[in-house]
């Protein structure tokens, strides 16, 4: 199916918008029919809706060409959908508060925590859903898998606005940035390097005289372990030039790794340094 049909043209689309008309193509329906074959669809709809959708799409063809795609180096798909997405999205959209009970890492639960649900976030690397929410302790991120129960709490609109702006201010505050330089002799691998950083909020600068590329990455402080794992992934090709904390971590990484190798000329595990475990996904 050619995605370059003229029906998708932006002028048609904006004219349809003005007239409140809708054009739905075979392309879209076939894609949907194919995606409804995924087991995730069981968690996505109220009883009855799924069979209704399948019935509405019974005359469409699935996209057979999916069989031509081989996916490589994909993280195991822990979860695509989670049953809690439906109720939680409604609380977020309606501006309601939340009362959460979550499971703790070492067993036990933390019951009845009140807060404001902010966003539902899917981590593409861990392939798992999280709820971003705000409460007195700050901005929290809880795996949906660890949520035992979530109930809406009524919230006056001004209180909602207040909490919401505080939550977003906190997100901004938590932002940190790093400048990563492409080691010049690897400029020929620019494409690979830029692709690797394309999953971050970033800007690139280029100094023509020095033939030097720098990438300024902006991310939340708690994402720096993931950023580090990307930098280690690229190895000698890149070097952190701004971001003392990250530079220190890379120095440690290198020292600890070399210590591992030096410590074990044979196959005995080395007793030692803390290691680059991080929560890097």
């Amino acid at each position, binding site marked *: 199916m050619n995605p370059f049909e003229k029906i998708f043209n932006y002028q048609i689309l904006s004219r349809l918008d003005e007239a409140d008309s809708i054009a739905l193509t075979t392309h879209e329906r076939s894609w949907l029919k194919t995606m409804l074959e995924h087991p995730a669809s069981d968690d996505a709809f109220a009883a009855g809706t799924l069979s209704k959708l399948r019935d509405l799409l019974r005359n469409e063809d699935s996209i057979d060409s999916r069989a031509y795609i081989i996916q490589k180096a994909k993280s195991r798909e822990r979860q695509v959908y989670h049953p809690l997405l439906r109720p939680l999205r409604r609380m*977020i959209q309606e501006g309601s508060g939340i009362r959460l009970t979550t499971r703790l890492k070492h067993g036990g639960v933390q019951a009845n925590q009140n807060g404001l649900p902010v966003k539902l*976030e899917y981590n593409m690397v861990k392939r798992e859903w999280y709820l971003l929410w705000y409460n007195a302790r700050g901005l929290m991120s809880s795996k949906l898998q660890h949520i035992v129960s979530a109930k809406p709490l009524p919230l006056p609109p001004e209180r909602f606005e207040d909490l919401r702006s505080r939550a977003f201010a906190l997100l901004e505050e938590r932002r940190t940035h790093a400048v990563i330089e492409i080691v010049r002799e690897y400029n020929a691998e620019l*494409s690979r390097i830029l692709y690797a950083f*394309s*999953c971050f909020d970033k800007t690139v600068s280029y100094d023509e005289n020095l033939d030097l590329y720098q990438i300024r990455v902006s991310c939340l402080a708690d994402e720096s372990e993931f950023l580090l794992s990307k930098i280690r992934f690229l190895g000698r090709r890149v070097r952190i030039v701004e971001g003392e904390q990250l530079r220190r971590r890379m120095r440690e990484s290198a020292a600890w790794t070399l210590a591992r*190798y030096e410590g074990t000329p044979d196959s005995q595990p080395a007793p030692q340094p803390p290691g680059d475990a991080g929560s890097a996904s």
Partner: protein
Amino acid sequence: MARESFDKEVQFLRMLALAGGAYSRQQFADRLGISVHTYDKTLRYIKDMRTALSSEAAEDLAEGLRYNHYESADPLLLFLFRSKSLKDSESVRLAVLIGLMQGEAMTAKELLDACSDSMPSDYACPDEKTVRGDLKYLEEVGVIRRMDGGRPYRYRADIDLIDRLADEELLDLYDYVDVMANTQVPAVQGYLLRDTLKKALTRRGYGPETFDVHLYKYHYHTRILDEAHLYTIFEAIREHRKLTFLYLSPKKGKNYASKNTNPLFERETEGRVETALPLRVVYDHQYGRWYLIGHSPRLGTMKYRLEGITQIEMGEAVDAETFGRRLEAVEQELEHSWVTDSHRRVKIRVRFYNPGRAGANFVRERVEAQGQWGVLTDESDTTFLYEIEVNGIYEIKPWLRSFGSSCEVLEPAWLRRELIAEWKEIQAYYEPVRENL
């Protein structure tokens, strides 16, 4: 849009997205092999498109397509697929026709009459032949459906999928489409459907707060640009036909020494014409990149990055038996590829170190989730072993290195030595600068 100009547009958007902000107009144009004038024109066209599609003012695109994950969930690059050029009169006419068929089924004659009332005054009314042509097209792409019953045929917009759903059901559908478009491949049709459903929900009174509830962290947004080629490639695979294209290899080539060459956007003259029988497409989750796997009679199995493919043309077909044989061979070759590497198979043994502190074992979780077909065995309280047979080490090495000191390669010895050497160099990057005496 002409084919070459389309190729340019894909390259243009890719450059905006990947290297956004890095280049001046002149540098940008040079790297794409276009004039500054064409650069300005293309940028203006893209801006017009963005303005037409979004109520918000378009930010300065020349700064690059920056993606702030917490601000918007709309895929910025989708508008590539909305850029097919069309005469004004045609877009007006098609929109009017679709509008007329929203609620009721109409015949060509009735539409023709209604058109004269509905067309804006600066556009001429279409003749019957044009309307019939439009109906044929709209039926082909599934926007309208011919109703049961004999001549004269009646047509209606095929929007049952939306109209038959209650509000809550439509909202669930929007969410499902949003999640699947963002997490699965291919995605473009899903993003287009997401747009359509967003509009349908807005029509039913849902506000903007409805649409930005989900976020996708560490998403490779540019992956949808490369989907532009999938349609042609899939058609060729289905029909066992060869493809000919101009390939601009993004890889480091023989002209490694030529300093100012940006491999991402080489000029056309630097590309080479390739012909290959397409067999499969590989999506690499590590970089969000696509590859075409094909067979060339002269060179055997070939792998092309989709971002380097331009001016793609369908060629002659091969017989089913030949195609089947080639496909089988390639599938065998790729079975042990970390991504697409088909070098000699190597057995790699690695020791991973569990994190020292208590709590979740992130190292183990990550190896289990990403280690593909490798096998894990417990070794001690603090370590476990990972063994894999893989084609070549080039593609798995970055992954192993990304674990830092939690990973120690045991075999092969030469890979172990390579990693030690690399870590020494990396360490030198971060040492305090000392003056040489």
